[in-house]
């Protein structure tokens, strides 16, 4: 501990609250809420608020998929990984049956094939270099990490490149999505999904035990996991689909590129109805962007409410380079892999879609490569 941290605060100083950034985060959120409510869109407001809650929950619980997976791969510690499965189990309780039974609701599905495998693998490398995944990049950038702000910029760029690559990757082949509820019905699909999570948890705990490591989630991960799981359900209820993060980055990147003169009219991805609509319409008409904005400002508000915001110095150039490379790889990988650890893994598994588990199985080896590469950028393998 340094002398500076031991020194008493000046009398009357409001140590702990960064009023400027707290006000900025709350004002920005209020402006976005006003814009969508003026358009008569209460569900859009609910998505912003859901994202805001997720930003707070992730930041306060320090809920990191990236560090959890790294600890599991390097030491066998499984508490964080099991906390992530808790989030999925809670979300699945609502998503599997509702997506199957209620019109206008749907799960996160995706085809199985080379594109999914390549994308998830590359994403895994990127998340370890950037030191944050889809959600981690968002809440860390919102929480005052300039390094992750840089990763976010490159994530956007990578995802635009990925959007241009995806049609070619899909041409390599694949099979249609495999959804548990399609074969077993809504409740059978839910039972199969929960059973797959229990099996995965047992396997992960057994590996941890064999390596002499802990497999008990910390209190932060338990409380945070429950809160994040419930917020996933809330976002699903408001948006009609499981929470997704990275499509918003792709839309932002493409909108910026369009403003700079890039023409997407010949790009196959941007002629598919969904992306075409998202590129043409207001950014506040895209569900993914709404939760992303909310999460950024929620994390900013939570960080500013507890300590001076973004007071640290910029990290070394090699660390920034890792963030940039990691961001690019994650962006490209997320488009080919149909999302990140949230949209593809959490959303996919919580929907009872086989692609979620395939994504996880392909991303883990990518993480191993990423962990091995970290020292090249001056980052620890821990």
């Amino acid at each position, binding site marked *: 501990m340094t002398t500076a941290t031991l020194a008493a605060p000046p009398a009357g100083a409001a140590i702990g609250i960064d009023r400027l950034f707290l006000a*900025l985060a709350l004002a920005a959120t209020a402006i976005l809420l006003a814009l969508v409510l003026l358009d008569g869109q209460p569900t859009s407001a609910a998505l912003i608020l859901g994202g805001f809650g997720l930003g707070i929950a992730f930041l306060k619980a320090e809920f990191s998929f990236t560090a959890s997976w790294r600890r599991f791969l390097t030491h066998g510690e499984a508490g964080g990984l099991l906390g992530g499965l808790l989030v999925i189990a809670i979300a699945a309780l609502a998503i599997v049956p509702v997506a199957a039974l209620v019109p206008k609701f749907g799960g996160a*599905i995706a085809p199985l094939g080379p594109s999914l495998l390549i994308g998830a693998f590359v994403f895994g490398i990127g998340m370890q270099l950037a030191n944050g995944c889809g959600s981690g990049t968002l809440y860390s950038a919102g929480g005052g990490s300039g390094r992750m702000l840089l990763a976010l910029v490159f994530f956007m760029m990578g995802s635009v490149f990925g959007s241009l690559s995806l049609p070619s990757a899909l041409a390599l082949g694949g099979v249609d999505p495999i959804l548990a509820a399609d074969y077993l019905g809504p409740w059978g699909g839910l039972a199969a999904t929960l059973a797959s999570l229990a099996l995965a948890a047992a396997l992960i705990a057994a590996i941890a035990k064999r390596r002499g490591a802990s497999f008990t989630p910390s209190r932060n991960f338990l409380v945070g996991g429950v809160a994040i799981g419930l917020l996933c359900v809330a976002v699903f209820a408001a948006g009609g689909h499981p929470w997704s993060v990275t499509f918003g980055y792709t839309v932002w990147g493409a909108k910026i590129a369009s403003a700079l003169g890039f023409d997407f009219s010949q790009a196959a991805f941007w002629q598919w*109805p*969904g*992306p075409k609509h998202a590129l043409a319409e207001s950014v506040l008409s895209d569900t993914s962007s709404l939760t992303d904005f909310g999460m950024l400002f929620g994390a900013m508000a939570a960080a500013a409410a507890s300590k001076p915001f973004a007071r640290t110095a910029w990290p070394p150039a090699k660390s920034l380079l890792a963030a940039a490379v990691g961001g690019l790889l994650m962006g490209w990988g997320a488009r080919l892999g149909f999302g990140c650890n949230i949209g593809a893994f959490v959303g996919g598994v919580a929907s009872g879609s086989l692609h979620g588990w395939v994504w996880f199985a392909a991303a883990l080896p990518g993480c191993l490569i990423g962990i091995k590469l970290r020292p090249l950028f001056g980052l620890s393998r821990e």
Partner: protein
Amino acid sequence: MTTMRKTYIVVVLLGLVAIIGNHLVSPSIGRAVSPEDFAGACAPCGAPCPSKK
């Protein structure tokens, strides 16, 4: 004020201006949608199913 704080202020303000500007000049059908809401979508990004090719 550190350069990181200045960077954040600039990024947040520019971002807000960009969001508001884009919202005001772009059409909007109303309800927020996901690419999965469109016919033929087989993934969260709206990619078509392999069987539809």
